[in-house]
């Protein structure tokens, strides 16, 4: 049996709405209409131990709701969910001792006391033995390079420093599953790369299953072997990132820098050509024409200075996909 299994999970929220039109502000104070929103509409998937899965979708698609249900803090309206043999919301306390959660926009550290104090509180909360605690803490401290931060109050940490501490806090009790809800939000490039490296390592070394929700497609590309796309509460795609790209971005492009400006003319087998000053962007379908053939053709026809072959930007693919799926 898979480590995580969701079957037909549904969750609705009711949202109160202010009436529209004249005097709506005033009328809204007396009458309120309620509207039911289907946050999750029959979501089913399963995840094996040790997988690193990206969970993406536009804002409000239901990502966080799914994570909240899987971490046992929300009860769905209907459906079945089994994680490590338990139903999260009925056996919450037993369930959460085996999982770690990082919410990028919330903190689990105590704001006004040194980081170390928060960690030793977690040691007591998760009932970690002193030996295990010291071993794991020194291992994580080294990997994430936070040794010098342990005595600093959390309020004085930068966002990147804090996020590294948050990750340590989530992993101290050696969870088998780690939920990461937008862990790289607001981080600079260096912190992001360091964090990704660490997550990858932790996943391969300790076989920690990770589920990552994010809007940063580079996160997904760097980390995830599988992606699930959710929109309007429905699971729209569940598979590898490669086949997602194949499906939504068949074309590849050659960016050619020329010696001088040359007006566009048709090149055999090209799908589209954009010209911007002395740069040509030539789109072609790699299934029909090999890249080197295309370059050869360009080299014959144009004064080339430099050539780069690019895949379509992943952000653009996802945007195109959201558009196509009408979400």
């Amino acid at each position, binding site marked *: 049996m898979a480590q995580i299994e969701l079957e037909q999970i549904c969750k609705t929220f009711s949202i109160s709405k202010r009436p529209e039109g004249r005097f709506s502000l005033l009328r809204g104070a007396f009458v309120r209409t309620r509207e039911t929103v289907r946050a999750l509409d029959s979501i089913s998937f399963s995840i094996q131990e040790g997988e690193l899965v990206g969970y993406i979708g536009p804002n409000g698609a239901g990502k966080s709701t799914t994570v909240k249900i899987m971490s046992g803090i*929300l009860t769905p309206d209907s459906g079945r969910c089994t994680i490590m043999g338990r139903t999260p919301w009925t056996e919450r306390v037993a369930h959460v001792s085996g999982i770690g*959660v990082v919410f990028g926009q*919330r903190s689990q550290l105590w704001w006004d006391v040194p980081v170390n*104090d928060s960690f030793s509180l977690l040691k007591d909360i998760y*009932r970690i033995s002193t030996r295990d605690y010291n071993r794991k803490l020194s291992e994580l401290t080294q990997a994430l390079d936070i040794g010098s931060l342990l005595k600093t109050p959390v309020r004085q940490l930068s966002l990147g420093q804090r996020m590294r501490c948050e990750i340590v806090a989530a992993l101290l009790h050696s969870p088998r599953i780690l939920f990461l809800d937008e862990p790289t939000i607001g981080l600079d490039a260096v912190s992001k790369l360091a964090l990704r490296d660490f997550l990858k390592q932790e996943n391969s070394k300790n076989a920690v299953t990770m589920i990552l929700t994010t809007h940063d497609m580079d996160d997904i590309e760097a980390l995830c072997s599988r992606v699930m796309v959710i929109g309007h509460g429905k699971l729209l795609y569940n598979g590898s990132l490669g086949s997602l790209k194949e499906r939504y971005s068949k074309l590849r492009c050659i960016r050619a820098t020329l010696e001088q400006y040359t007006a566009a003319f048709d090149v055999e087998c090209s799908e589209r050509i954009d010209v911007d000053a002395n740069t040509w962007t030539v789109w072609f379908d790699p299934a029909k024409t090999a890249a080197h053939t295309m370059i050869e053709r360009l080299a014959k026809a144009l004064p080339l200075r430099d050539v780069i072959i690019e895949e379509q930007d992943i952000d653009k693919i996802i945007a195109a996909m959201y558009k196509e799926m009408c979400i």
Partner: protein
Amino acid sequence: MNGIAATLKTCLSIFRIKTAESLQYRMAGLAGATTSIFFALIEITVYTVFYKYSSNQNAGLAAGLSLRQAVSYVWLGQLLFLMQPNFIESDILGKINSGDIGVELCRPLDLYANWFARTASTRLSPLLWRGLPIIFFAVIMPPAYRLELPSSLSGMFCSLISTVSALLLCTSFGMLACSVRLGIAWGEGPTNIIMLAGSVLSGAYLPLQLWPGFLQGFLLFQPFAGYLDIPMRLYLGTMPPSDAFWAIGLQLAWALLFAAAGKAIMARKLRNIVIQGG
């Protein structure tokens, strides 16, 4: 049994970290102490006027509280008043409103126990930075304004135990208000009024013994006497130490009742809680 011991240990850790956090705010404590001392002096002046110049000068004594005892009541009242839940703990309220309660629920720990420990710490920690200066000031005052020594050693001892029970009672009532507030977006008004009523009935504004005679039976048995009035009576000796057993028992019984109610309400609300924010 093992589970309960472990939970208690965890709660103690939460209590410790929260207290360590609160004790950093020295200046706030000292500033608060100034307010308390100012109000204590005004109250003492008012009592002195009533006791000395009223048309029925024996009314206070007839109620069993002398002027000297009333003065001590004011000082200790300012101290124990700090323990009363007059509002829901701001940390916890913030977590309810912002949805950070989700993080708390990701811990393998009963939420009620977790927050009880936090609230208890918030109730107790002002006693240090704000409470100590009050007591210091109260002892060095001129005789007519001074805090008296306890009536007897056994009375002092009973009063201390009763103060610990008062802490449990204050915390469990604060937690009841907090459980009611959980998942509701109608603001602080209603819970604040309930808590203010507790404050008035505790004797913090007027010692319960000075309330009308026909109310005395009710006043002693209602839950909020346990906040402040019972430890105070034991200290002043207006309640003999031989009565301490049932009086403290009464405090604990109310605390237990509030805790049970709070826990039940919280359990029901958590079943269909909405975690705010993405």
